[in-house]
């Protein structure tokens, strides 16, 4: 589904990614691990089009999307749950969710009940402004918002950050549900190793702007991962 080939990425003149390659398959959860500042977010930025890579190629569904505008990518089915939530602060929860309607045909523009079933708090706070929600509530909103667009690939940047344990479990279930029932490709960036190991069909570990480990969770050596996650 998604294929990232040897991308480099620069912030100004400083390089953050060095030839990163990865793939996210349909109906599978791909998990990226890594310490702070190794380039996980940067990789996702390249995939979602928020930052243009300075080299390499990204294809989605067989189409080259390396230089495509973010909105186009969203229309082709890439949804994004960014780090730091990026809620529209002055839109109500409902309106936040509705921003996802842009990519849907007119007759499909509605918010699935499963979103509210999953995150009941969103249903309760439909008319509160997104910016007023607590950190964890915002995180839930961000995931819900991404689900509204009914994507083929959902990209999540540390979605469990700041979320209460019970909901973390639920998120795990949702991701599984999306993978299994909807056949979505899931690309997950995590720091929370246990969570990742439990979910992932494939694990990638990044260090200093490069992919250093890549494999199925049961194949990959726990100690090697830990080594890269330690300073």
């Amino acid at each position: 589904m998604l294929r990232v080939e040897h991308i480099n990425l620069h912030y100004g003149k400083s390089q953050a990614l060095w030839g990163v390659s990865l793939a996210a398959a349909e109906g599978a959860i791909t998990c990226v691990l890594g310490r702070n500042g190794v380039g996980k977010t940067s990789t996702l930025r390249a995939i979602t089009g928020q930052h243009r890579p300075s080299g390499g190629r990204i294809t989605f569904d067989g189409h080259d999307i390396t230089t495509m505008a973010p909105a186009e990518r969203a229309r082709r089915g890439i949804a994004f749950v960014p780090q730091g939530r990026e809620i529209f602060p002055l839109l109500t929860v409902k309106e936040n969710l509705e921003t996802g309607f842009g990519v849907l045909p007119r007759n499909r523009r509605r918010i699935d009940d499963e979103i509210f079933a999953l995150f009941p708090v969103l249903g309760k706070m439909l008319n509160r402004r997104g910016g007023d929600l607590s950190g964890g509530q915002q995180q839930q909103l961000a995931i819900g918002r991404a689900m509204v667009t009914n994507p083929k690939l959902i990209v999540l940047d540390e979605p469990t950050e700041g979320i209460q344990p019970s909901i973390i479990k639920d998120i795990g279930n949702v991701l599984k549900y999306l993978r299994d029932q909807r056949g979505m490709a899931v690309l997950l960036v995590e720091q929370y190793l246990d969570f990742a190991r439990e979910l992932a069909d494939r694990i990638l570990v990044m260090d200093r702007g490069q992919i250093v480990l890549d494999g199925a969770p049961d194949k990959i050596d726990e100690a090697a991962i830990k080594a890269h996650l330690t300073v």
Partner: protein
Amino acid sequence: MLRILLLAFLLCFGLSAETRADGFDDGLHLLGGKFDDVERGVVILAGSGDQRAGAVLAALQDNRLMVVAGDPPSFFIRQADDSLLDAATLQPAGDAAAGAKAVRVNNRIRRAAEAALGTLNLSSPNAAIRRQAADAVFKARDGEALPALEAALAKERDPDVKAVMETARAAIFLANGQGDEAQRLQAVETIGRRGDPDALAMLRNLANDTSASIREAAAASVSSIEMRQSMLARVQDAIYGISLGSVLLLAAIGLAITFGVMGVINMAHGEMVMLGAYTTYVVQTLFVTYLPDAANWSLIAAVPAAFVVGGLAGVILERTVIRFLYGRPLETLLATFGISLILQQAVRSIFGPTNREVTSPSWMSGSFDILDGLTLTSGRLVIIIFCLAVFLGLLAFIRYSRFGLEMRAVTQNRRMAASMGIRTGLVDALTFGLGSGIAGIAGVALSQIDNVSPNLGQGYIIDSFLVVVFGGVGNLWGTLTGAMAIGIANKLLEPFTGAVLGKIILLVLVILFIQKRPRGLFALKGRAIEA
């Protein structure tokens, strides 16, 4: 005075000795002379009782009476279609009219003609004209018009016109000391009912009347009118305030979008307004050249045109400049300031530095009474209604349309909006276009009350920003309230402090108010703002 005596003399003479056949010709010939002669001619014409006099006087008043010098000179009446009638025969004029020049008139002559026409027209078959005539008689308060007025009153069937005629008669009674005491008392009452400054002045003049009862009636009437007037004055000020407020609002709405919603410190906003005003001018010129019959409606056509012109300018501006500056709001100030200089000078180069003329359509000129004594000009009323319509339309659009939602999403978090599949570029361009288009529409309205000059926009930019900020950035209701509050406060202050000091006080009040509410009247609250 001399005039009145002369008129009196002539009227007496004319009435007693039947209509003098040559009165008309004598009068007409005098119209070719100097101002004094013309005035005499008017009086003679009025007294001639001749059928043609009315037409000649009306033409004279409107500068449509033409003369070809000679002895005696010959006169012609220019019709609406520019064809000429011979004034003496009222038949189409032939070659005789060659080289005809308009008869020169001045205010004195216009006044004399108006008074004379008033008397003549009192028996017109057209009720509106009779009413106008009665008004003219009221204004002139000419004692000699009394017989004609009485005659007309006797015949009058239309109650409205009759009332006006009675007021006119009352005015004549009071002004010239005519009528018996009962009639005069009745007159005091009639005039008192008018309740306007004219009535007040007339009644005040009765303070030294010989009859005590009239003196008292007048004094009572005066004090009640005075009280009413001073109350009405405040209401009137408030109405003016609303009218000023709607002008401010109109000028500011576009800015409430480009600045309030998008966060662009748009110094070129005023120039968008100016472009709208110039569009109005161009549309009007096109109408006058190609569709002269519909010229009265050119203003309506100018509204969409101005929206398109302003909007297009906005879209171009956004695509070429502003879009590179999102996230750097202060830089937009710099760039748009540069653009405003360019636009001003461009308009100056194309249309010249001087004012352009935009005429008011007939349905926007004149004024009407809301209550007696309370007036609002039609143009202002149209602007108030127009402004509210634009405001509500925009509000609904932003609230309820899909585009409104996308617009707000984009301005709050451009990057994330893009990741939600919103075409931010398009939304940005259209939003800025919308704001600029509305500024253009404001230009149509402002062309009715202000200069259509390259500087037009400059006059509104400070006020517009003040209104948006005072109301609370990002809140359209705030803009509405802000505009109205500033408008009304300004107009309530003005009679007491004068225009200059009033404005200074207002500015200081706004500054102090912002201390109390640092985010404007309708402040956005919540975590997102305070962080």
